[in-house]
């Protein structure tokens, strides 16, 4: 059974339809990238999948539980299975980086302070920020904020991680390190990843499957492995992989 099922999703802001009739499944342990031109609705789709916005119609199932219109209990259960990194990082500005990672652990586990601190600092080590734990988000660069946000998203070892443009603003080395981390977590822990990204190198490195959105169809224009999409018959799709400007 699919871990995430999206069925006939229609997303609107006011009267403006951004996505219509979007359906796809994601299996446990899969790394799926969502791609598409800027403004085609990738972040919007992600926000629907994590329950921040209710769709105009359609359904989203996570781990067999219907997300849309679920009661508070089910919702809490689903939320515990997912971790999210927002496009802008969304770290809490009044807390240090370490406290940002510590917060969910303190809220949802009964571990003692030393254990929580160790877990949090090791998460920061994984994203290469162990030396910056005591700093505040405002004192970090944009890329560092992103990495800290990823560490926070992983704090509770969720089954599914949603990452919105994790590698935008990162240098190639850090970006590659992040790709390796994603693959390792997917393979060794069976973590599922839904990653919004434009980075071609990243897509090839991590994606089991890519789902491409496009504004022209207000939905999914193609999906498949990165190699399949690169050889796709539709010029919009293959053009994305060849970095051809739209004419």
């Amino acid at each position, binding site marked *: 059974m699919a871990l995430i099922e999206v069925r006939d999703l229609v997303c609107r802001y006011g009267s403006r339809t951004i996505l219509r009739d979007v359906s796809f499944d994601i299996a446990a342990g899969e790394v799926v990238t969502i791609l598409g031109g800027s403004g085609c609705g990738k972040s919007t789709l992600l926000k629907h999948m994590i329950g921040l916005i209710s769709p105009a119609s359609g359904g989203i199932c996570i*781990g*067999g*539980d219907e997300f849309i219109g679920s009661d508070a209990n*089910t919702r809490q*259960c689903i939320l*515990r299975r997912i971790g999210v990194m927002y496009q802008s990082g969304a770290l809490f*500005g*009044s807390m240090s980086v*370490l406290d940002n990672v510590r917060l969910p652990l303190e809220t949802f*586990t*009964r*571990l*003692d302070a030393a*254990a929580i601190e*160790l*877990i949090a*600092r*090791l*998460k920061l*080590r*994984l994203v290469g920020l*162990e*030396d910056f*734990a*005591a700093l*505040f*988000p*405002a*004192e970090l660069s944009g890329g560092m904020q992103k990495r800290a946000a990823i560490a926070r998203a*992983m704090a*509770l*070892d969720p089954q599914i991680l949603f990452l919105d443009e994790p590698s935008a603003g990162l240098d190639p080395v850090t970006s590659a390190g992040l790709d390796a*981390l994603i693959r*390792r*977590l997917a*393979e*060794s*822990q069976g973590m599922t990843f839904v990653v919004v990204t434009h980075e071609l190198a990243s897509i090839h490195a991590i994606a089991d499957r890519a789902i491409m959105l496009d504004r022209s169809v207000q939905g999914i224009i193609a999906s498949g492995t990165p190699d399949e999409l690169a050889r796709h018959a539709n010029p919009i799709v293959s053009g994305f992989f060849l970095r051809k400007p739209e004419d």
Partner: protein
Amino acid sequence: MNDHASTPVTTLHQDGEGWQLRGPLQLTTIETLWPQLRAQLKSGDILDLAGLTHCDGAGTALLFDLSRRGITLQGLGEENARQLAALQPDKALPVMHTARKAGPISQLGHQVALLIGQWRNQVSFIGGLLLALKNSAPQARTLRSSEIWRLCNDCGTNALPIMALISLLLGVILAFQSALPMRQFGAEVFVANLLGLSLIRELSPLMMAIVLAGRTGAAYTAELGTMKVNEEINALLTFGIDPLRFLVLPRLIACTLMAPLLTIFAELIGLTGGALVMKGFGIPFGTFMGQISGAVDLGDFASGMLKAGVYGLEIAGIGCLFGLSAGNGASAVGNATTRAVVYMLVTLVVTDGIFAFIYYLMGW
């Protein structure tokens, strides 16, 4: 959904020399296990992990902790070993530098330096404003009149309802509370004098200023502070646009223009409230008006207007100054706004005192 129920327990066994851990090692199972392991295992002990099944990030952190304590981990599966290796268990975590608590003397020095810095900041702000004013005087066109119009609307017109509410209440309360004792002497009619003088000279400008500070001054700090956080101020600077001229001057102009007008409005509503109460005490509207025009002259009115204008200038100036000097991050904006409002209120009181002193000296 039943994560807890379906989770098999993780168990610790001792056989002879070594220890054995069986089951999954994950966030839900290590809560009790972690303290147990810490208490029972000593450095040099051998822990056999061949029976370990799933191991998540928190579980790996536990293994990291154990190996850091000098416990030998044996028989770790390939996947789990790879995860542990990614955490680099041989490398110690860096020491965290927590800020040392400063002594009283260094705290005092710090505060004084802070205060001096603030003064310098304020002086250079005023200087910069004057410069901006001088530069834009010959080319008033560049002063974005539509923006000033919008700001006037925001701080003036939109404040009318709350201003009306507060002024009416003030007029009614003042009239009622003073009419009661005055009636004992048959002097109700002089309530009009009291009301006219106190509202027009003092209370209306002050009330207007307090509303303006809470409604508009605080908003300026928050808005400019957020612009600073989002590097919008830097964007202006790199275009060679002076933020003082582009952002602050229009706000100063709007507030300085609107404050006297709001005050006139507040006075009218306040007096109306008073007149209504006095009508209840048997004093007709005409008599009330006559008393007021006898007690209040143009000088009183002008001094109230002057005060109001200065209050408006101060509020907009302080609001913008604190916004522009906000630190980074959302909490910095909140801090700046709090400090700005307090500063505005204190400044209002001080200014009022200075005005009272000057008026007294001049015999106005």
